[in-house]
Structure formats: C-alpha cells, structure tokens
C-alpha cells in the first residue's frame, strides 16, 4: 500500500511514513526519480498499475489462505475422527491409566505423563548446557571461534531424528544402562523415597534414555535462541557493570542474565515444544509399553507421539483408531500451547521475535 501514502503529500513526510511502513525500497526509488506527487506512478514503474497490484495481492492472499485452510482442515479432521473415542471415554480419556485396545478401554494418561516426563528430563539436562554454550559464544569466545562453535551446535539440529534413534540404540542406550542406570540403582536402591526413581531393571529402554536423547536434540534450539537473546543485551549495560569494577562473571550475572532471563526461559520452553512433539528417536528408545504411571526413571513407556506412531497402522477397529486420533488432538493442543507461551515470553521480554528466529 506504499503508493497511497506516497501520493498523499510531500516527499519528506511521505518518506517518514513509508519508512515506518517498511517500504524502504520504495523510498529509494522515490528519491532517485525526484518525484513527489507523481510517486504513485513511479513506484508502480508505469507498468501494470493498480490492476497488477490487485492481482499480486490476490495471489498472496490465496497462498496465505491455503495455509490457514490447511490448519483448519487438520483441526476439523482430527476432531471429527476423535469424536467417537472422546465421547465414549469422556474425561477418563485423559485421566484413565488403562489403554487396552482388545477390551476397548482407552485412558491416555500414561502417554501424556510419558510425554511430560521425558520432555522435562530433556529440558533439565539441555537448558544449562545450552545457556552455557550461548554465554561462551557471545561473551567469551574469540571472534574467530564464534561462527564455528555456533555452526557445530546448530548442526545438531539438522541430523535426522531416525539417526539419533539409531545412535541411541547402538551407543547411548548401552552406555547409559551400564554407566548411569546400574550405578544409580546401586546408589539409590536402598534410599527410602529416592528408590522410587530407580524401580525396575536397568534396561536402556526407558524414560531416562528417551529424555537424554531429547536433551541432545533440543540443545541447538535452546542454544540459538538463547544466543540471540543474550546478544541483544545492550553493550552499555555490560560496560556499566565493568566500569563499576565487576569481573566478567559478575557482569554476566548482574547485567546479562537478568536482562536475558525471560528470553532464555522462552528459549527453554521453545525447546520443550520440540521435545513434546519429537517422535522417531523417542519411539526407538522409550520401550513402547503402555505401562502404568511410575516415578521410576527406568520405566519403559510411551509418549503421545510414539504411541501414535506405533499404533496407527494396527488400529483394527474404529474405536481404537478414534482413540489414537484423540491422543493426536491432545498432542496438538499441548504443543500449540507450549509454543504460544514461548512466543509470548520471548516477544514480550526478549525483544524482537524475528531476530530470535522464531
């Protein structure tokens, strides 16, 4: 809509308006041609005119509408297909602990719990590492090292999920089973209370292993957002602290982290969003068992995503199928809500969401 503004008044005022509306290219064009009231013609370059613009507007609108329509379709289809199971089970669908397709009982609580439990394990492990790495890149790393370190960490994000799963089975799971789970059992097995965390044999197919693989997978997400947020901390803040005689760590603690805190929380929640929806690697490592909820890190289980992936092809009656779609609806809501919260936090406190890449 730049041309309307340009046509409205003199060039100087128009430029300001244009700049505010983000049409910087148009401003340059207007300057070069030294036109004011004729800006409309110039900006349209004399060809196409209003007709071309309207066409372009229609085309872009169509594309935007397609995306919107896709989302609406997904929601509608999921709800329609899930209706049977949700109507039959009612609230028990999210509070029931028994998921037995043979008997037609569907309580998805263990799946919801599995999703939350593994995601939180992932988050607890990944956040400190990611924030530490981000601080190193922004505050400590020499300029020549910044790009390579960021690149390598972000490379983690492009590794396909199934490769993480395979590596998990071949390397991570046996390692964790023998070097972490067995010692953990030995150490905590007789401690009242804490022994609840290590019930069951060390299998290498459980919540803990799935959580660790999730931690690795969400590391680049959290790190890159945290890095952007930390680098938006104004230099004057840092200089102020340093001028007061602060050490580098005091400067980070006193000036950088408080300023970036909300953004880092947002980054973590964004990582959580990714962890909740992750499917392939988790399916390969979580042990795929509809066992009841347990506090034990060593319980094999299901996340919502892995349950859907595993049972979708098998669903041999409409109720089971509908119940799986019901899990998908819950998953969609949870991931949607988590992403929304992350965006709100980052955009409100962390500044510009475009700069943070989300």
């Amino acid at each position, binding site marked *: 809509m730049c041309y309307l503004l340009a046509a409205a008044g003199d060039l100087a005022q128009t430029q300001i308006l244009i700049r505010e509306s983000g049409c910087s290219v148009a401003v340059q064009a207007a300057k070069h041609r030294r036109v004011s009231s004729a800006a409309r013609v110039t900006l349209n370059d004399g060809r196409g005119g209003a007709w071309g613009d309207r066409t372009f507007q229609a085309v872009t609108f169509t594309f935007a509408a397609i995306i919107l329509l896709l989302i609406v379709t997904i929601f509608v289809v999921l709800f329609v297909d899930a209706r049977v199971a949700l109507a039959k089970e009612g609230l028990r669908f999210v509070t029931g602990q*028994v*998921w*037995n*397709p*043979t*008997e037609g009982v569907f309580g998805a609580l263990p799946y919801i719990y599995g999703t939350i439990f593994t995601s939180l394990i992932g988050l607890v492990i990944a956040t400190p590492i990611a924030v530490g790495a981000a601080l190193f890149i922004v505050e400590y790393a020499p300029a020549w090292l910044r790009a390579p370190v960021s690149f390598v960490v972000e490379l983690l994000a492009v590794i396909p999920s199934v490769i993480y799963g395979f590596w998990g*089975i071949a390397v991570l799971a*046996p390692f964790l*089973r023998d070097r972490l789970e067995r010692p953990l059992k030995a150490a905590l097995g007789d401690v009242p209370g804490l022994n609840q965390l290590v019930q*069951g*044999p*060390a*299998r*290498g*197919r459980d919540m803990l292993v799935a959580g660790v693989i999730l931690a690795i997978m969400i590391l680049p997400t959290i790190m890159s957002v945290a890095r952007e947020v930390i680098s938006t901390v104004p230099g004057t803040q840092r200089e102020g602290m340093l001028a007061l005689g602060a050490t580098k760590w005091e400067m980070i603690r006193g000036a950088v982290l408080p300023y970036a805190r909300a953004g880092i929380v947002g980054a973590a929640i964004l990582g959580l969003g990714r962890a909740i929806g992750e499917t392939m690697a988790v399916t390969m490592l979580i*042990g*795929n*068992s*509809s*066992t009841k909820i347990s506090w034990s890190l060593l*319980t*094999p289980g299901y996340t919502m995503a892995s349950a859907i992936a*595993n*049972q979708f*092809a*098998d*669903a*041999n*009656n409409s109720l089971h199928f509908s119940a799986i779609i019901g899990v998908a609806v819950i998953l969609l809501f949870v991931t949607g809500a988590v992403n929304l919260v992350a965006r709100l936090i980052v955009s409100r406190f962390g500044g510009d969401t475009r700069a943070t890449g989300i």
Partner: protein
Amino acid sequence: MINGPFSGEANGLNGAGATFPQVLYSKWFDEYAKVTNVKVNYQGTGSGAGKNAIRDQTVDFAGSDSPMSDAELEAAKAKCGETIQHIPTTLGAIVVAYNLPNVSQKLKLDGDVIAKIFMEQVKKWNDPAIAALNPGVTLPNEEIITVHRSDSSGTTDNFTSYLNLVSPAWAAGPKSGSTVQWPGGIGANGNPGVASEVKNNPYAIGYVELAFAKQNSLAYADVKNKEGQFVTASAASVTAAGQAFAPTAPADLRFKLVNAPGAQSYPITAITWILVCPKQTDQAKAVALTRMLWWATHSGQQFNEALDYAPLPPAIVVRAEGFINAITVNGQKAFPGK
C-alpha cells in the same frame, strides 16, 4: 504341480502382515520367483496391520497368525464382498528366548512361571520358582527384563492364549489378544524387534518364532507341555502338536494350536494363514495369486523344516485345496489347475 510360468498371470503380487512366518515366506517367494518369474513382495508389518490391509484391499493377500474375528470378517466384507478366507501355510513354535550371559545349560520353564515372569511377579532370575524347575543351574541374581510386542501381533495372540489356558492369574489379569495390557517390560516391533531387544539386553526374556531365535543365536527354554513333559521347540514337536489338533479343526480353519495334548507336542504352537478375498476382480492377479497359494501349500512345504517351521498336516492341506479352488474371479474359478 506348478513348475513354470503361466501365460496371462500377473508378474507381481503384494502381501503384508505377520512377521512370524517371514523367514519362511522370504525363502518361499525367492524360490517361487525362480520357478514362475512371479515376484511376490511381502512386508512384515505385523498381523494386526495385515488384517487391516486385507480388509481395505490394499494388498493382494495378508499374512496373519491371529485369525480374524467375526466382527473383523464382517467389516472386511465391505470391500471384498465375501468372507475373507484363512488359508493355512505353516505351523511354527513360539519360543521363550532369553539372554543369560554365563549360563550354558538350557533352561526349563512351565506356563505358570512364564506367566509370572511376564506379569513381573517373578522379578529375578534366581527366583525360587525358576530355580525349582532348573536344579543344578546357577542362576544370576539379576532382575529380569521382559520384552513383548508393541504392535498388534498374532504371535502375541497365540502366546497370551497359551498363558490364558495354563495360568489362572494370567486369565484374571492381562488375558489374551493381539495386544494386551502388559504389566511392564520393553515393547518392540515385530518378531525381529523382540529378537534384537533380547539379544542386546543381558538378562532379557521375550517370545519369538523359533526361526528368529535361531537366526539371532538366542537360547530358548524347554517348555512343559500338557502331559508334564519338557519339550524342546522344533519342527518335529510342532508337527506333533499340529497332528493332535488337525482332526478337530473347524470348517473355516480359524483355530489355535496352543497347549496341545500328546507327550511329544510343543505347547506354544501356532498356525499361520494367508488371508485372501475369495471374490477377485483382476483376472491376471487372481491367477497368479491362486497359483502361488497352491505352490505354497504343496511344493513350498519342502522348505519348512530346514527353517524350523513345520509342514502342514496332510488333512489340512486337503482343506486348503478346497479354499483355493473356491476362489473366483468375476464369477469364474480363478485357479487354472497348474
């Protein structure tokens, strides 16, 4: 006798389903391509997915070792137009395979103890219940890792049907079916998935078709049968179980072979079927399909024993012939007779 190509038959068939007979089917379809140039593509997706695929007619045939229920047969009529037929192809043993480092003797188990292990009531390998059946074997003081199927499985259906028969606790708990509510343990996809989880995890135990235990060099227990004998799973002990049940097989051949009578019978035996729609519409495919089924139930049987499956009892083969002859394409008999 089928010993060459047949003009006008399709040069490819697609099937999917049970992983239980997959080792045998791979061999069969490899041999069959040499004989007839017909390429049969079979995907081991699990019996549950196989039954869905034949219901939706997305495959030419499905594999399953869990018979379709009456409700499933009814649902499948929509696309097929007729009742799906269960054509038996082979018998096999479901073995209880385990991974016990440093234990070289073969373990002995009975149905009750197997049920307790999978219900996680017997939690350790040196539990008195296991030790009582295995005098002289030094069992480790380690927790048992159970492995079961995560997909809808005919192997699970037969295994749990057996436990249901022999263990009142199991019958009151998880019951039987293609999927059951397992009290715990690792879930793995397909017979190959269970075999590899058992292989990768010391102190694990799982149930797989005999061929998968052999292929993965897994140890498997001798199981106490109905007559109180501990029997090793083999083509011979499966054949014994099959012969015990063959005379009482129902008309549609939807039956189970678990807990067979007879001193030589292995108790956790299963029959597996190829499921087909008897009302075909594609002439070339129908000819190829019926010829393949005829070959599988006749010449194909010679490959069974080498792969630790048991050939079909002759009485069952005769019944299968009747099913194959009854398959029609556009109202005409589909099988060309050779």
